[in-house]
């Protein structure tokens, strides 16, 4: 199927540039790693929904605030007719954004959304949706933001990782694995043993500007566990663990190549972009060399948190 056909009735009419009719004149900023992320063209109802969703991470800008005062990535939000989008039965369906990559842009199609990222040369975004309020609008924005954060982190030398992030308040650990590998199960075991769960879905690994080893940074993207409005924070990354569920508990070191492979597989969105892959691979290779990596086989009876705590830094 050609780009967008799964979600759009007229994929050939996908916006060729960042223009359209805005929903309103409201603006806000989301303070998320890789950001700040500025959004304009919003309706009051859209702002209110995002304020509820992101809480302290969301700063609503006054109408009189100068438009050039905020640094970060700007996304303009536009109206799109509801009739442009296919009605899909999403029961039992794994949602994946459709992406089309080119040298200077990425086009994105999804449930009730069209979006594009343009590098000219700085990154800007455009988002078209028929949703003006409520959960569906928040879902549209969040799906777009996840992808945007992935690209921004890579531009900073970091990565977005499909992972469970856990912390003891001092260190952070990242647990990797495809869907079904046990990220949420492992997170529950750690939570029951007293760990803090940063997210059981998406976490950021970054290298601080001032040097030093990598850190795991909290993101507001969670599955079943983690705080969607959690205080921003970063913890030194103690280890990366590739998860396997099994009856024979084991902890086996991964070679740098195996660690790198596990990290590449866990880096969503950008790992399919042939135009922007080199910075991603460079960041992942740096991470694979900087942090001990292990394969952890565990079961529901495993004292997983104790195992993590015993891994030497």
């Amino acid at each position, binding site marked *: 199927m050609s780009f967008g056909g799964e979600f759009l009735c007229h994929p050939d009419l996908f916006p060729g540039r960042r223009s359209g009719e805005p929903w309103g004149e409201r603006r806000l900023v989301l303070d998320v790693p890789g950001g700040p992320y500025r959004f304009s063209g919003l309706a009051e109802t859209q702002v209110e929904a995002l304020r509820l969703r992101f809480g302290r991470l969301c700063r609503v800008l006054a109408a009189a605030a100068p438009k050039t005062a905020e640094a970060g990535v700007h996304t303009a939000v536009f109206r799109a007719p509801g009739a442009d989008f296919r009605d899909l039965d999403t029961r039992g369906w794994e949602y994946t954004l459709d992406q089309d990559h080119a040298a200077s842009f990425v086009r994105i199609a999804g449930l009730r959304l069209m979006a594009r990222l343009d590098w000219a040369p700085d990154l800007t975004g455009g988002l078209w949706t028929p949703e003006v309020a409520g959960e569906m609008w928040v879902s549209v924005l969040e799906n777009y933001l996840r992808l945007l954060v992935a690209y921004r982190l890579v531009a900073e030398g970091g990565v977005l990782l499909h992972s469970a992030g856990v912390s003891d308040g001092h260190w952070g650990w990242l647990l990797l694995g495809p869907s079904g590998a046990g990220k949420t199960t492992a997170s529950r075991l750690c939570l029951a043993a007293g760990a803090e769960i940063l997210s059981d879905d998406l976490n950021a690994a970054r290298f601080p500007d001032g040097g030093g080893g990598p850190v795991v940074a909290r993101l507001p993207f969670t599955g079943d566990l983690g705080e969607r409005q959690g205080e921003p924070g970063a913890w030194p990354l103690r280890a990366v663990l590739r998860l396997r569920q099994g009856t024979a508990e084991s902890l086996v070191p991964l070679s740098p190549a195996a660690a790198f492979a596990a990290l590449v597989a866990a880096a969503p969105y950008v790992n399919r972009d042939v135009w922007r*892959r080199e910075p991603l691979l460079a960041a992942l290779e740096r991470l694979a060399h900087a942090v001990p990596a292990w394969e952890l086989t565990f079961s529901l009876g495993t004292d997983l948190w104790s195992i993590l705590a015993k891994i030497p830094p």
Partner: protein
Amino acid sequence: MSEITLSTVLRRPSDVRYRRIDGEAVVLRQSTAEVLVLNGVGATVLDLADGKRPVDAWIDALAQEYGADRETVARDVLEFAGEASEAGLLEPVPATSAEKAGG
């Protein structure tokens, strides 16, 4: 998929990228986001798959590099090339393209 012989010319598809890390190769097939880890010999085969040299030339290079029996190397390379092609890591170059690329 056509049979791979000593005269077949193979190349890496445009969506396949790999990096050598500590003697192994991590291969990313970007269209599907699949990731594989190959040993050093597999990495060397990927180096050789430039779309110009036939498989026969790979065997010469590998037999020399590893000081191994050519017949054994040939059997292993043909088997690996078949599996790598099935996995989308290698693709045959059409005869006319290979002739042009080869000079």
